[in-house]
């Protein structure tokens, strides 16, 4: 019957995505259109590109953001050096992506819930996870995930995008209980290829959940560049598949990030449904300390990105406003270094857990069947 194949074909005009389709015949009409917005407030030199949101006119707010970003960066550098000297395990640097975590976390409420990948030290530090805890986790000790600060935040998620489905569960709990709380899920550009992400986005849309997805689009997923991850022109448009809106922001511009996060989080909090923010950034370092980006990354790419650095950009903005000075910078750097050193010392001084700890948090009450194993682990005889 396949002789019919070649018959009666009419070419339908194909459009390049991003271009609105012009209706042809009656038979063929446009029934839905979508757009993705892009938000930037500060250009790479720290100059406003238009009127600023009011928080950006508040010196106290802006310097607080700056301080947290610098603390994060100081911590990050120290973590890498500790790893190099064998005092820390594999560590994923967040260099160059501080504006995302800091900007987003700074507009979350204490009892909102943050769920992130392994690269959002900036957000954790703002939320009150201690530097000791972050060292401890990457030093190979589970107690580092027993956050002393945000008790309901999730431990970092290493299995890519799995926390996106946790986030919709957390948000469902909030919604079912009519609590004005929001779940915020931060994940990478690579994570947007995974079904978990999409299933979460789809549920968030159809249940109008109080959840905000923030994509740290740092352009790389280990060695796989953004363009090899998806043909979508923006990652923000992934939200369209879930029936809601995504927005792309300059992720090196903390004003834009914070602005977009404010909007999305408050919309979510007040019953307006989920949000998705694609924050364009750049992974200035290797994927982790176990990686060598030199193997796969175009030679000058990283150095070309220096000019977009989010910390330098905010610094330039503060300078312009007269809110900052060389003196203040010197003091800040010294303070950050001291705090990080202090945390490092505290981390190195931590007494290791007993071997049996691996049994003691597995269930609320250890099943009798495991007592014998625990006994061996404690140094007793084999079963």
């Amino acid at each position, binding site marked *: 019957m396949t002789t019919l194949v070649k018959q009666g074909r009419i070419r339908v005009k194909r459009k390049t995505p991003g271009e609105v389709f012009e209706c042809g015949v009656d038979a063929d009409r446009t029934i839905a259109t979508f757009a993705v917005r892009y938000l930037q407030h500060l250009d790479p030199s720290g100059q406003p590109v238009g009127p600023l949101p009011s928080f950006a006119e508040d010196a106290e707010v802006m310097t607080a953001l700056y301080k947290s970003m610098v603390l994060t960066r100081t911590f990050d550098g120290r973590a890498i050096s500790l790893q190099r000297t064998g005092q820390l395990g594999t560590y994923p640097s967040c260099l160059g992506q501080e504006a995302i975590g800091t900007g987003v976390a700074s507009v979350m409420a204490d009892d909102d819930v943050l769920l992130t990948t392994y690269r959002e030290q900036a957000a954790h530090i703002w939320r009150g996870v201690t530097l000791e805890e972050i060292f401890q986790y990457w030093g190979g000790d589970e107690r580092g995930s027993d956050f002393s600060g945000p008790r309901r935040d999730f431990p970092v998620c290493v299995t890519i995008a799995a926390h996106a*489905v946790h986030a919709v569960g957390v948000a469902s709990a909030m919604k079912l209980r009519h609590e004005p709380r929001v779940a915020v899920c931060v994940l990478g550009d690579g994570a947007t290829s995974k079904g978990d992400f999409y299933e979460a986005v789809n*549920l968030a849309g159809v249940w109008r959940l109080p959840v905000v997805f923030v994509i740290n689009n740092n352009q790389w997923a280990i060695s796989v560049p953004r363009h090899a991850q998806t043909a979508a022109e923006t990652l923000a448009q992934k939200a369209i598949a879930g029936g809601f809106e995504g927005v792309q922001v300059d992720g090196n511009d903390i004003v834009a990030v914070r602005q977009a996060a404010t909007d999305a989080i408050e919309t979510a909090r007040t019953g307006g449904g989920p949000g998705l923010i694609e924050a364009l950034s750049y992974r200035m370092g290797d994927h982790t300390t176990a990686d060598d980006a030199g193997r796969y990354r175009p030679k000058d790419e990283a150095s070309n990105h220096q000019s977009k650095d989010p910390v330098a950009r905010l610094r330039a903005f503060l300078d312009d406003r007269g809110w900052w000075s060389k003196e203040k910078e010197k003091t800040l750097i010294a303070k950050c270094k001291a705090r990080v050193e202090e945390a490092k010392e505290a981390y190195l001084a931590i007494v290791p857990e007993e071997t049996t700890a691996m049994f003691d948090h597995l269930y609320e009450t250890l099943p009798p*069947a495991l007592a014998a194993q625990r006994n061996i682990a404690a140094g007793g005889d084999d079963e």
Partner: protein
Amino acid sequence: MSEITLLSALTLAMARAMEEDENVVILGQDVAVNGGVFRATEGLLERFGNERVLDTPLAETMIAGMAVGMAAEGLRPVAEFQFMGFSYPAIDQLLNHGGRLRNRSRGRLTCPLVFRTPMGAGIHAPEHHSDSTEVMFAHIPGLRVVIPSSPARAYGLLLASIRDPDPVVFLEPTRLYRALREDVADDGEALPLDTCFTLRQGSDVTLVTWGAMVKETLAAADSLEADGISAEVVDVATLKPLDTETILASVEKTGRLVIIHEAAKTGGFGGEIAAQVAEHGLLHLQAPIGRVCGYDVVPPLPKLEDAFLPSEARIVEAAESAVAFA
């Protein structure tokens, strides 16, 4: 008390748990308006409303992960996967997250959830509807794995599972859903999640089984009795954590052990039980440990289904050769 099916006992247990704890919520595909494809959740929507009985989109990873997120926030989600054969996307969530959340956060966040799913062959269902892969769950640290085999045990074990502070995989043999009725008191009494149930006392041979195969095993025990062989029948019920003691005590008494399960033999949970006995009860064994299991094949479509399922005859034969062994 009334004579009810295993299926109705499950509904009763869920309703009871929802009544006593408002954190209990039901979720899954077709569980609300339709009451579940097997009707296990029938009537719960009407009774507890659409904020506690939730029809989800068709996405198993999401259902599993959502349950983890809900549980971390203190709800007690009872998630249904429509068939075991569709539950595999949940393994990633169970293994990497559900079973680990308490441990990896050193007790800060916990995961009191139940994953229910129908399992097993024998109802002439289409492809992928007949799996018995319980061992895959029973191997995962941090979980409990429970399989009821009668209405009363279904009620008591499901209640216990929902009340348990840790994640429980609750597997329901479809073949038993409506196969037998039993008096079940809706008294809120849970059954323990760490003991086997000895369903029949015997002195010549121990038959250890669980789930749907309890039916054929009890029938085999009857046949054996007619032949003068006294078989003890142990329903494992909770595979993880395993109550090795009850099994060892029985083997000590009978000296002979046959393990019966519907799942594929190789790497099935029967191996674990045999290994425990070969480690801790070797001296009591007067015969090789027999295993009567599903073959290591794909559960066939209905035409060959009966030939696939371990039969009463195979159990009798194995028990007889155990007893005859000298």
